């Protein structure tokens, strides 16, 4: 094999030129699917996801009739062309089931479901391009689509991860850094209250290191929140001006 991959250069730059605490570039567009109640395409670096939200609407499944809260259904799929190699569609994909469950459980605590008894909110997530940390981008994309749909939530749900390579905590890892095999902690928080809604750890990590990595990830969430909030407010201003609800000053 070749020489050991250097993840932090002498100048302190990562493989893609970022600093350890720098998140990837964010680009998003709301309302991309006109028939959906809410939708978005979100890019974080080279990871790209598309999310559509339908609801609140009539409950389709018989079992969910008469529920006091809105039922949240999540469909997650990652396109065959999203990764480095073309993926075969498996009959039962464990990762798919895990992500669906994680998104559903997380948003059940964020969306104000008690406002819509006997209704359902359906979230469709499609990963178009994955360059690491797709789950966090999916959660952020779902937040954007829900905001676009006007579905009431407690707060923005912002997700970000942090890894630990070569003695440094790195925020928002990309695929190359993921392959290094170091520990990774994706976390999802309510942006303003900083309450943790989702947290994952699949590696062994000492207590002190975990604290440092978690702190780094949560700081990443704050950075992402600032970017998203500013752009969403600008988007809302333009739309509402158009509909003559606010004056254009």
């Amino acid at each position, binding site marked *: 094999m070749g020489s050991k991959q250097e993840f932090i250069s002498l100048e302190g730059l990562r493989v893609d030129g970022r600093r350890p605490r720098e998140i990837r570039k964010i680009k998003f567009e709301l*309302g991309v699917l*006109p028939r959906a*109640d*809410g939708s978005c395409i979100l890019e974080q670096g080279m990871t790209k996801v598309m999310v559509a939200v339908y*609801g*609140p*609407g*009539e409950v389709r499944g018989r079992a969910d009739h008469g529920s006091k809260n809105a039922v949240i259904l999540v469909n997650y799929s990652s396109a065959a062309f999203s990764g480095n190699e073309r993926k075969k569609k498996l009959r039962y994909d464990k990762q798919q089931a895990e992500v669906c469950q994680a998104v559903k459980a997380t948003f059940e605590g964020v969306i*104000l479901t008690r406002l*819509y*008894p*006997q*209704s359902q909110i359906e979230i469709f997530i499609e990963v178009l391009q994955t360059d690491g940390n797709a789950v966090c981008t999916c959660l952020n994309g779902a937040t954007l689509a829900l*905001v*676009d*749909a*006007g*579905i*009431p*939530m*407690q*707060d*923005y749900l912002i997700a970000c991860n942090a890894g630990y390579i070569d003695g440094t905590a790195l925020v928002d890892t990309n695929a190359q850094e993921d392959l290094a095999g170091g520990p990774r902690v994706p976390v999802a928080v*309510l*942006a*303003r*209250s900083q309450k943790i809604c989702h947290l994952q750890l699949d590696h062994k990590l000492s207590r002190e290191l975990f604290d440092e990595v978690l702190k780094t990830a949560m700081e990443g969430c704050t950075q992402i929140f600032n970017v998203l*909030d500013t752009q*969403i*407010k600008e988007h*809302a*201003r333009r*739309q*509402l*001006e*158009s*509909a*003559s*609800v*606010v*004056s*254009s000053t």
Partner: protein
Amino acid sequence: MDAAVDATIVTPGELLAVNAAEYLRGHGTYTDESGRLLASVCGVVQRVAKLITIKPMRSRYVPANGDVVVGRITEVQEKNKTWKVDVNGRKEANLLLNAVNLPCGTLRKRDKEDALNMRRMYADSDVLSAEVQEVKGEGKAHLHTRSTKYGKLYNGMLVAVQASLIKKLPQHFVTLEIGVDMILGKNGYIWISITRTDAEKAVAQQIQDKAKEKDVYAPPPYQPTSAAQRQILARVANSIKVLDSAFIAIYPTTIMDVYRASEEANLIPPEMLDKKYQSVLTSTAIRRRGDTAKEFKKNDDMEDDED
């Protein structure tokens, strides 16, 4: 910021007031454990004295008494003597058998035979116009078609837009000067068809009356639409879609603005939907912004707060 100022844009989780108890909580807000009032949607703050409401950018149609709507039948429930109607809301609306006019205008109690004939009146995926009679809890609307102007719609085209762009108008059944009839459903479903001349209408009525002698549920006859007429309909439909994607209020004046702009720009209907022409087509309609605010303020003051 404490006590959000009217007309500011807020996002979910943003603080509106430190003490929620001092205010009346409207839609789009919620109280957290420490008693603060927070926004739950992204939208604009609307303050009226102590009432704080957030109007979101987008939401499904919220039915209100008296609204004229265009809907599509999703289910025929003969057992419950009800039709389920999709009106672009969070819940499907109900159209009870008791709320429709029986054919030939007879007045009698609905019996089992009427229930079995429901499908001959309105079948699955038929489009109809109706009025909201009542709104039961959680947004379930009850519709009625107790007027000759309401009922099944034929020989036309349905365009679906965001409900928030259609405000309460003096007239929801309008005729454009280019010869197009429109029903602007307050729920965001718009029905457009070619205006028929009185002679054509008389002939169609004659044919239908004759057919009704054999079958009371006979539909009006098919009326051919020429290619030129279909071009006009397509242009109107796309004008409406342009207004929808530009988030501009939809009413006859703005629809004609975009229609005329598309003719001046020499665009064929399919080209109109291209994003690059959006600013050209909407330039006149956007300038009317001040007018609509005044025009609709009159209507808003009259209607109840429907949220």
